[in-house]
């Protein structure tokens, strides 16, 4: 007799459906078109970041520095335009900064062999510190006249759909194509599944790992541009917030195991919907910021515990220095 088992994707989707149902019934103003659009708009940035994190996590890494990539290069664009540079030139510089940042991350992890969590924790601090100390004059970089027109990246609608959601959809399609249709995507899965075997088979694992972090940084920068466009400024203090945990939450809840090699874009979408619903519900319920963090933390903890039961490790297989 075949044992009846849910996979995580189905469980999370069921939880999402249940949560959505409960909120719709018991929360006033949850199931309105307006709120639904706000919800989707709010989670669009989170979803894009989730895609970036997903690529890295599938390749058995993690990128804590995503928020720095979200805040600093787009902030630089705003600051440079404010200082009188042209928008394309500013975008180019920000792009170069992002790529350089991704390369540094990738080099540290792939070539210097610093554990990814640790390396990105430090590089994130470094980039945020750079922004704070050198690049920005104020914590919130203001919109200036030179940016006019750019706000359409995050505001307004395309065929009746809010632009930020369209941006999320585009990002989803690009990442799905990368992961499923290209050779590089297959390599990322192979490296995440078993890095040593991947290396032995002749996959250029080190360059591919660098590529992962460069792509992640680029997607992070893209998310930042969408975010800046939608709020008409760049609040660089977002680095100090708990946004990165939301991103990890999206990925882990969506069912992309932290041990790598599994999951895809669909998982990110499901995770984003669940988190978006949860955050939206909590905001409507008027739970304080600290309270929301507490709840998110507990949910994330439960998710990680579940993950460890679904993808168990033990003393026999745990790798040396695998923290």
């Amino acid at each position: 007799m075949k044992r009846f088992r849910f996979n995580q994707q189905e469980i999370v989707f069921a939880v999402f459906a249940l949560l959505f149902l409960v909120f719709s019934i018991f929360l006033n103003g949850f199931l309105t078109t307006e709120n639904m659009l706000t919800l989707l708009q709010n989670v669009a940035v989170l979803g894009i970041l989730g895609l970036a994190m997903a690529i890295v996590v599938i390749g058995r890494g993690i990128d804590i520095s995503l928020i720095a990539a979200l805040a600093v290069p787009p902030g630089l664009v705003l600051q440079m335009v404010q200082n009188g540079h042209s928008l394309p030139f500013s975008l180019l510089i920000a792009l170069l900064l992002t790529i350089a940042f991704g390369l540094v991350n990738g080099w540290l992890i792939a070539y210097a062999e610093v554990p990814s969590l640790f390396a990105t924790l430090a590089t994130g601090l470094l980039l945020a510190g750079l922004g704070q100390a050198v690049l920005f004059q104020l914590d919130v970089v203001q919109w200036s006249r030179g940016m006019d027109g750019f706000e359409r990246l995050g505001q307004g609608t395309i065929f009746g759909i809010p632009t930020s959601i369209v941006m999320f959809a585009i990002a989803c399609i690009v990442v799905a194509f990368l992961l499923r249709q290209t050779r590089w995507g297959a390599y990322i899965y192979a490296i995440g599944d078993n890095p040593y075997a991947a290396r032995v088979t002749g996959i250029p694992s080190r360059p591919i790992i660098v590529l992962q972090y460069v792509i992640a940084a680029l997607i992070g920068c893209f998310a930042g541009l969408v975010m800046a466009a939608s709020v008409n400024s760049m609040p660089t203090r977002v680095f100090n917030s708990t946004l990165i945990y939301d991103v990890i939450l999206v990925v882990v809840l969506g069912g992309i195991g932290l041990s790598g090699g599994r999951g895809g874009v669909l998982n990110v979408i499901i995770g984003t919907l669940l988190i978006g619903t949860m955050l939206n519900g909590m905001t409507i319920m008027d739970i304080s910021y600290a309270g929301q963090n507490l709840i998110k933390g507990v949910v994330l903890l439960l998710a990680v515990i579940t993950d460890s039961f679904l993808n168990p490790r033990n003393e026999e297989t745990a790798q040396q220095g695998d923290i």
Partner: protein
Amino acid sequence: MLMRDTITSLRYRYWPDHLLGEILSKRWTETAIPVILLLIVGFAFSRSIDNFLSPASLADTARQAGEIGFIALGLALVVIVGGIDLSVGSIFALTDFCALYLLDVAGWPVPAVVIATLLCGAMLGAINGILVGYLRLRAFITTLITLIIYRSAYDLLIQRYSNAIASAFPDIPSWDFIGAGSVLGIPTVALAYIVIAIFGHIFMTRLRPGWHITAIGGSRRSAYNSGIPVRRTIALCYVASGALTSVGALFFASRLGTVGGDIGVGLEVIVLTATVLGGITLGGGKGSVAKSAVGVLIVLLITNGLTTMNARGGVNRMALAGILLVAAMVDIRWQKNRTRIISKVYVAPTYHELPPPPPTEIGQGGPFEQNDKLRDVEAIGLGRIEAPEDVILDRHDNLYAGSRHGDIMRFLAPDYQKMEVFAHIGGQPLGMAFDREDNLYVCIGGMGLYRIKPDGTVEKATDETNRSMRSVNDDSRLRLADDLDITDDGLIFFSEATVRYEMDEWPIDGLEARGNGRIISYDTKTGTTRTELRGLKFPNGICVASDGQSILFAETFGCSIKRYWFAGPKKGAVEVVMDNLPGYPDNINLASDGNYWLALVGMRSPALDLAWKMPGFRRRMAKRVPVDEWLFPNINTGCVVKFNEQGKIVESLWDLHGENHPMITSMREHRGYLYLGGILNNRIGRYKLDKADPNFVQYDKRWGKAS
């Protein structure tokens, strides 16, 4: 040419090349690097900032260092066990709140507050411990989550109670003493830190749980398989981290008494930087209390220095992150390449010049002229014994030899066909000698000097000697005890061929040609061991001379025989008996006519003789060429010679074909026969001597005929 040789010789005699490898292979070098960094940072800031090292400034730094030091100790424990604890900043904030709430709002007495705060910290740590230790979650991600949970709990709590705490002004002397008091000018917190740190050092290096922690960090799998309670130990490390963090928070609370919103924010990065900078390896298994303390001091000096210089917040952040990255990278690369670097620099050849050797070819005359006398040597135990370095016969004519398997084998007289295991030791037996009571003393390579009683029981005689103060390597243990002889007074002289290499690496010592060996005496009456001579080039065979006041010893790579007086008027003197031998001398033993037998284990070759005069060449070889392609002293052909007291060769026995007995490391005369041993052989040779005393027994000669 001569001038150049002299300069080379002087340079290699007085410049201690060998120290670099020995220092690098010491564990304390990994602590020395952060200490040097600390000194540099301290010096740099004291030059650029006024009053940086004034007593007031130092006391302030000491208070901060103590508080952060406690947290760093906890984190060190967790990192050594192979995990990481990012939640320390939030635990710090929560326990700080706990202490102040209980004191100011609940009005508890100070001792109760202290105990409750410690319990609170331990409990918060225990949550981490259960999650990471028992549920085996990933340490980094788990403690990242508990960081958020604890932090938001703290935020919720201070929203309600911060006013109550801020408005209270407790005036309790004991509480103030914790925060601001000092004993003999040293702040309380620093004093407490020193006490805990000393205990922590003893705990990690001398107590069983500390060893368990290091073992789990070193290899979780091996620790699990050897029965260490891995999960419980890991969980307890997190509990300890929480408790130590709460100690830091307690001192902080009593010093400042505030519950601001940003207390403990980013603290984990500071502590982590300190830990990694101190040299505690991420991933576990390596680290010490001293490293943690040094790391904390460096980080505090840097952050305080930058704050004093009015750097912007972002600069501080960048500096910390940059240092963290560089330290982690250096640490990871060093751990990965350490053994490779050490093996490259450890071999330190020196200048060793020998004159051209005396001729040995047939037709050239001279005492070493080759012959074929050993051609028809008969083989004992062919194929049944391996690596008999030395052979010896007791007064009942039984034959003893060591074997590669760690046994002393005995061939029974009269035909030496029956072989039995006389004693099992476990290490490779080398030189052997009988004492007056028929005890067999054996030098065991890698183990030391052992005594085997006539009934076959094995006892350790000695395996250590006094450590010489000028040696970097710990030379108290015996690495390669080689040959021995016993004086009439029961004093055993034995040689230790090298103090820098293990037994299987002996050819490298020859490549180095440095005086790494020594002669050690062991007094059977008092059981004391003493180093008699050091700086010898691979001392090997030892034989008590006929005068009973001196020993003759061979220096294998010195190609010489020397005499050392241990008694009599010339006591302490060393005199050359023979030098510039054509081969590498090995064991020395008595001959029936009052002369001495000497085995030459191999003959010198022009290539190695030349290389010995070129230390730079040999060093390059050791660095660039794989080990199995290095120059190797020839040990394929050798001979036995007989020499007299004056150092004149009387006779030489050669085997030009090497069929019956390929190599010779030792020989023993007994009742008209010469028994031959060779460390690479699978047999013992027996050669009929022509004009020898057919009743000669070494035991009788040394100790008198037994009645």
